[in-house]
């Protein structure tokens, strides 16, 4: 599948100043970090991925087709960095620091267990499925932007999202899940 960061240049390279680049990039770091964290389940690895994505973004900024869609394009670069990072170090079975079972469970502990269970389920998804789930549910992005991040069509993203929900919550109604 073609990634946004891999698109061919369609406009001549235009050098921009460090200040302009910093102004463009700063509001994208926080969502980029959240995406990386949800994808990698490791705060340090997530920060590294965003850092590398920032430099990659500067080098490939002239390849961006639509300057108005900088956010999905940058998140696409982050997603590629996450995929490369997982290739270098497999972190799917990351320990979340929580016991599998607790003998006495309070409400707070039960909420934590459910959260850990959900994170573990998301971590077990394939890269593209996990990306769609994180972007849609955690970063609250519309399918149009998700398609831009993944370099795919809206229909394909919708189908992938449905399949991923089924994997996460087989007993959950789709409309309820999407609500």
């Amino acid at each position: 599948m073609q990634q946004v960061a891999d698109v061919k240049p369609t406009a001549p390279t235009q050098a921009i100043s460090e200040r302009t680049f910093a102004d463009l990039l700063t509001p994208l770091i926080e969502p980029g970090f959240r995406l990386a964290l949800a994808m990698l389940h490791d705060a340090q690895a997530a920060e590294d991925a965003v850092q590398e994505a920032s430099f990659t973004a500067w080098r490939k900024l002239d390849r961006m087709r639509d300057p108005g869609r900088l956010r999905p394009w940058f998140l696409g670069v982050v997603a590629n960095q996450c995929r490369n990072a997982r290739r270098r170090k497999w972190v799917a079975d990351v320990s979340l620091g929580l016991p599998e079972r607790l003998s006495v469970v309070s409400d707070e502990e039960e909420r934590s267990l459910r959260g850990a269970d959900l994170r573990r389920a998301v971590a077990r998804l394939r890269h593209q499925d996990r990306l769609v789930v994180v972007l849609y549910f955690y970063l609250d992005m519309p399918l149009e932007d998700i398609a831009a991040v993944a370099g795919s069509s809206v229909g394909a993203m919708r189908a992938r999202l449905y399949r991923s929900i089924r994997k996460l919550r087989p007993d959950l109604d789709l409309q309820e899940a999407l609500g």
Partner: protein
Amino acid sequence: MSLRSQIHSAFDEVAPSTFGLPERVVQTAVTEIQGHRRRERLMLRLRVPLSLVAAFVLIALVVGVLIGGKLLHDWNLFRSSAPAGGGDQSVLAQLEARPLNFPTPATHGDCMPGPYNSAGSFGKGPLYADGGSTSSTSWGLYYHNLAYAETHISGPVLIRAMDLFTRERVVFVGRYAAGPVVGQDTVDGVAVEQRTELVFDTSQASNDSYLSQYKFAWPFTAGVPKSWSGSTAWQIDGVGFSEVFVGC
């Protein structure tokens, strides 16, 4: 609780604070970019001198190839044009293809010697010959002769000779003997091969001091068997001339 809320909650509860993160990441990226641009500017400054060096190297390579090719070509030309075995083989082949135009006297009385030049040498020019001393062997008699020219001639000179009555070819031995080997003998204690042709190379004529009075001079040895008739005819073929003289 919706799935969206559950996922938000699940990841937010493990997400560290992002306070200061954007500024830190952007500052690091900008520092990297500035370093990258410095390296680019350095490369840009080096590009011109490096391009010049590359251009000089390229020109040197091209010139080297051209000069080398020319030298190789000249060397091959020199080797192919150098005399092989005393003369231009293709010209010699053309001379050898010329027919022998010897007289056919019926009797010894019909044999007419000559022509001679003013010095009494055989030949009408440009090449002349004088007879010299002899050596005897069990096979026959060898004459140590001298051929010479007083004007410039070029290319190989071919000499063939024949007994006018026995029709046997006169043989040649020594330095200028050429053509097929027809026999072997020992002359003055030296083993020699008898050949049917004599070829003079005008680029390698003798430079003996006592012969310096001639433009070209070639001492040579011709042999006739004991059964020879005493009458021989000689044909000399060169580039642009052909002559025959007879000795009786």
